[in-house]
């Protein structure tokens, strides 16, 4: 069969087609149609010729098959050291083969490649750290995802996710009006506790432009309120934007390069329109990678940088604590064993390993912070990164992948896990649901709110 009505090579372009695809519960029809989907071999080969540049070709060529990457991969470790889970094998047997065969691969091959790209790799880039030749299989897997997406072989939820970005410029069906309205609602709800609290909208030339994850608007707007409260307490000159506020990119997980660009350009437009001194994003790892690290290349920016200086939320928190803009009441510091789950995307992709540890020195009573082992840039993925958390088809594999993190947490003895990343936060929540190890998990914001000193002018009168 050529292309199906639901599963095909066309990206989602309209709200209507998005709803139709959403209506196909769990992607039942979608995956059925995928079984029949032809591979457009000419398109595949021509795409490779146009987009597979020297870096990836060199990497594929110079891989010595030494196996040094094997032990670095959480999938290899939790799957009884299955040789098919060695990162080098995973990329050579998929992307390597497609190139070797000049795109002449069939439907069955594409199914195998799809499972490899989305259920055997979270693009955590840990293997790249251990390769003696510096080959980053995570980056190549990201490229493979793009090829697969272009052929229609992409998990249902990610086709939807990329479609959301195309239709709403957000990962969920949240409109610009919804966003601003929700911020107003939160100001109403919190302004009695924090006098003067409000969300400046579209303020030009502010010090900080704050960007977010659409899920905060949709399901837990408390997060928006908490961010506003902390900015106010810190006395920051900040603003939100009524357009281009979504920091995340499910399109990146999906390999929908065009949607990646659409999304990130919407944020850069906001930066250019409002001219803030810097942009600070919410506690989300992949969003930072998408908008700050990879985005400039998607958007074709020659300097390889976003239009203004961009910081991850943890960088702002560390700075605010360091400079005394946020002051912690020493009596309210965390006095129980606590550990931190850093997002791969701000650790390995952006070198922020010291930042969260600095934050811990302020928030946690000395002696109570227990780092996981390994940690910092050697830390493992939560087990749900790269879109893995949301894919129903690979739920079993995802649950299995949580084991590494579960055991790392158990070894620390901590009952509280701080995760300044939506994806890690989700994975740790699911981990508790699945394995019931008796832990709690939190973003930084709700913990900070409980321990920072509120300046007098913000305290309620009665």
């Amino acid at each position, binding site marked *: 069969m050529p292309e199906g009505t639901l599963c095909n090579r066309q990206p989602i372009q309209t709200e209507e087609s998005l709803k139709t695809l*959403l209506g196909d*519960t769990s992607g039942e029809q979608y995956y059925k149609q995928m079984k029949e989907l032809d591979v457009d071999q000419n398109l595949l080969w021509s795409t490779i010729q146009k987009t597979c540049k020297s870096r990836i070709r060199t990497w594929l060529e110079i891989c010595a098959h030494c196996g040094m990457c094997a032990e670095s991969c959480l999938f290899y470790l939790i799957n009884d050291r299955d040789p098919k889970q060695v990162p080098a094998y995973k990329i050579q047997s998929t992307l390597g083969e497609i190139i070797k065969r000049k795109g002449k691969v069939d439907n069955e091959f594409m199914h195998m490649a799809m499972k490899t790209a989305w259920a055997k790799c979270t693009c955590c880039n840990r293997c790249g750290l251990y390769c003696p030749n510096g080959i980053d299989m995570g980056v190549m897997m990201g490229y493979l995802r793009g090829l697969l997406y272009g052929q229609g072989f992409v998990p249902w939820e990610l086709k939807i996710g990329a479609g959301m970005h195309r239709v709403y410029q957000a990962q969920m069906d949240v409109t610009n009006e919804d966003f601003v309205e929700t911020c107003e609602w939160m100001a109403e709800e919190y302004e*009695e506790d924090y006098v003067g609290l409000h969300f400046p909208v579209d303020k030009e030339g502010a010090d900080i432009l704050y960007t977010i994850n659409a*899920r905060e608007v949709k*399901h837990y*707007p408390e997060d928006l309120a908490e961010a506003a409260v902390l900015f106010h307490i810190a006395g920051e000159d900040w603003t939100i934007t009524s357009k281009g506020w979504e920091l995340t990119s499910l399109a990146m997980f999906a390999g929908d390069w065009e949607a990646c660009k659409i999304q990130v350009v919407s944020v850069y437009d906001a930066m250019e329109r409002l001219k803030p001194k810097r942009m600070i994003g919410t506690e989300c790892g992949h969003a930072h990678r998408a908008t700050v690290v990879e985005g400039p290349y998607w958007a074709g920016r020659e300097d390889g940088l976003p239009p203004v200086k961009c910081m991850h939320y943890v960088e702002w928190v560390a700075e605010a604590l360091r400079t005394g803009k946020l002051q912690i009441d020493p009596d309210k510091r965390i006095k129980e064993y606590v550990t931190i789950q850093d997002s791969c995307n701000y650790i390995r992709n952006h070198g922020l390993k010291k930042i969260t540890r600095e934050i811990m020195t302020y928030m946690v009573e000395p002696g109570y912070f227990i780092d996981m082992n390994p940690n910092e840039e050697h830390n493992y993925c939560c087990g749900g990164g790269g879109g893995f*958390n949301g894919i129903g088809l690979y*739920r079993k594999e995802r649950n299995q992948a949580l084991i590494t993190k579960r055991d790392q947490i158990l070894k620390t003895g901590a009952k509280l896990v701080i995760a300044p990343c939506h994806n890690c936060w989700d994975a740790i929540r699911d981990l508790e*649901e699945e394995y019931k190890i008796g832990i709690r998990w939190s973003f930084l914001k709700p913990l900070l709110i409980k321990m920072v000193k509120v300046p007098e002018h913000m305290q309620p009168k009665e």
Partner: protein
Amino acid sequence: MFKNILLATSATNACDHAARVAFELAGLFKSHISILHVLGVPSRGFSQMIVDVRTGETVPLNDDYKAWVLEEVKNYYENQIKAHNDTETNVAVGFPHREILRYARENNPDLIVLGGSTDDPDLSGYKKNIAGTTLQRITKSAQCPVLIVNRPAASFWGGISNIVFGTDFSKASDVSFQYAKKIVTSINDGELHIFHSFDISSAHTGLSLSQDEIEDQLREARSKIRKRYISQLKGFNKYSIDVWEGLPYVEIVKYAREKQADLIIMSHQAREVIPDKARLGSNMEQVIMRANCPVISINRHTSALFE
């Protein structure tokens, strides 16, 4: 008095008593009643999976499922809906406290009615995602009074007449008083019982007081009640005043029992939601848990309505 009542329900027997109270009130005051059931908590990151709060199962969300649950809720309350025409039923997806508050913000009910929490640990979909209970978060943030029926024993069958107003003399309590007055004067044979408990717990005072000192405090509280509240009753004379010493939440529960109260009205002042000490924090939460009649919580947001 009540024109638009929002009954937020899990559509399980944990909320049966609250539903009974809501429909009683709706009958008494000829109110419109909106039943809202938050059917599922989003799960699995950005996926379309939700945890159904009634079954605890993870299910894929779609319009059919929503329509099916809506029918289930309508069936669950079939008899009440038949008996009270002016009823609408809605379902929502999300974290219960947030969706209830969202619905309330859009529809401006003048009372939110909540049942007890679903304490079955297997039905913990309500609780596990964001710390803090639904009840705590709604009583803290609602823009209108919230009526809670936590125990089966707290639901009434035969209308309202005895209203207990508990005060700590705060500004928020003044608002609760206005509200209590409004209710008691809008019903037949209403009686208002104004109550204050002088807190003698050592944790609070830091020292133990002599009985003379305590009694001085009680006298002072009585005169405060006269000055602050009785002066405003203007001709309404079916009231009583009592001031006891003890642990406030225990005393008010005992007092309400003695007065055969049909309703307790108090102001809620807690500023933060304490996840691990859920429902054990304030006097209000203790009263809600222990009372044998419905409790109306008035928070600071509500205050604006009556000023």
